[in-house]
């Protein structure tokens, strides 16, 4: 359903194929214990089954990530900066 990108500056980008609209309050809630996450935006949310442990430190340090929502493999519908929140 998507993937994370990590660059040399420690910034993280989440690529996502979904149908919900990204709003201003977009946030990624990470459960560190189960290494899973939930992307929430407005009333919508989407589960992310697995967050690789190597991503946890950069996400903690930056406290935000880019999210790109696509309607197909190439065309980006929407992009947003999302807050990272550790909940577990």
């Amino acid at each position, binding site marked *: *359903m*998507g*993937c*994370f*990108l*990590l*660059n*040399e*500056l420690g*910034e993280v*980008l989440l*690529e996502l194929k979904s149908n919900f609209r990204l*709003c*201003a*309050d977009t*946030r990624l809630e990470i459960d560190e214990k189960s290494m899973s996450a939930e992307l929430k935006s407005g009333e919508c949310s989407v589960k*992310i*089954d*697995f*967050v*690789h442990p*190597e*991503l946890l430190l950069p996400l903690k*340090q*930056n*406290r*935000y990530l*880019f999210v*790109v929502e*696509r309607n*197909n*493999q*190439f*065309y*980006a519908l*929407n*992009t947003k*900066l999302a*807050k990272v*929140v*550790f909940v577990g």
Partner: protein
Amino acid sequence: MKDNVYEAFLTGKIKIFATHKDIKPFVLSKNIIKKATPFLIASAMTLAACSPKNNNNNSSNSSSNSNSTDYTEIYQEVVHKYNLTSLMTKEPFSQEEINDMIIHNNPPVLVDYNFNHCPENADNFWEIVKNGIEATKMVQKSSILNYKQKKEYQIVAFRMLSQMTRVKGTKDEIDISDYNNLKTFLYFEKLLQYGDDYEKVLEKDQGLINEQTEVFGRYYKDFEILDKKVQKLSGVKEFAYALYNNNDRFMISYQDSAQANKLSKQFLEKWMKTQNITDENLWYLTTVEEDGFANAVAYWHRRGKNVELSLGVDSRGNVDGGDFSPIGMIIIHELQHVMQKKPASAEKPEDNQKSDDDVAFASSSYDYSCISELGPTLYSLALEDRLYKHIKGIDKNEILDYGTLQFGQAQIKLGEVAVWFGKMIDKYPENSVDKLIAKDEVLQQLNQWGNGHNNMLRRSKYVER
């Protein structure tokens, strides 16, 4: 195609992680990124890395296999497959071409000084872009910029060039109405206008903090937990209120201000290192006489926007009411408040029904129960106590008489609180001050004091200041 988010990812290496456990990370090496501009990274990533089949096949030697992939073909394939007509006629510049553009830049004579933010034609576009590349090289010699800032100029110029597209099959024929080309033009136009004025060119405003800033809301959950715990502890509330409203806590006098300010900057440097904060643009310097928001975090709520904070600090350490607090201590105290602020504080749908005054306003007010002030104020008290003793050559464990907090019949010495909290800081090396306050041992002591019980064992002697 909104590819602006990829600008930040044009570094030497990008690693890709799937959202399924059984797929190994995949590396887009420098060689691939050299060939792949943002468009291509997007398609390469989704086609190669996100496909479990491809990734599993390549997992043992992913980077060597990926080197043989022709990403230009992938780009064309995707454009045709999804019938992206607007992209069919365009193509990005290759990395080699961009490097060549930078190294062998031969700018025409700059005649356009109008800065009217609109490229007139392709010649005008290249005039601004090529002179902008030259200006990027010139700012490297600037004496007012530091190494990091100069590097940032280079990186941004590189990103801007990477996002341009040309008419397919041509060398440098540009669609000047293309969104990304326009962005590149506007950036270089701004660079030509402002040169090494870092704040104007790269739009870094000193003292302006938004939700992207690393400190914003870093420990807001710790504050929420503390606030919840304190609701049941009336003594802690009493203590917080009494401490914050007692100006005897500003124990350092103006006579020692020069030395105190200097030392406090060393404290600040150490604290920032512990907190892993590198951005020194988080505050601006001002004076309490001229600035109503000096020495405070001001919250700027504007209609339709996320909340922004501004942090101004009196450059001499002057505090309202004629007191003094070393500048480094003020910065630590206020940044601790920034860390308490809950993120995602944007306007809500129901705010549409409210008036502008209810939604858009500026405020520097604090929580009237003083709970948000409790941690930062205790931290300032303990640090300033240690700084004062350092200047005077007094042992850090000695309890000095700065004044008292009154709770019913009981009096608590501020010096006693300062030494005790200093010990708590050493005992619980938490980065979040509210997490430290929420420790049972700490809350219990504060609650007893606030309820008028001073049961602390006094092993140290009091000395007059």
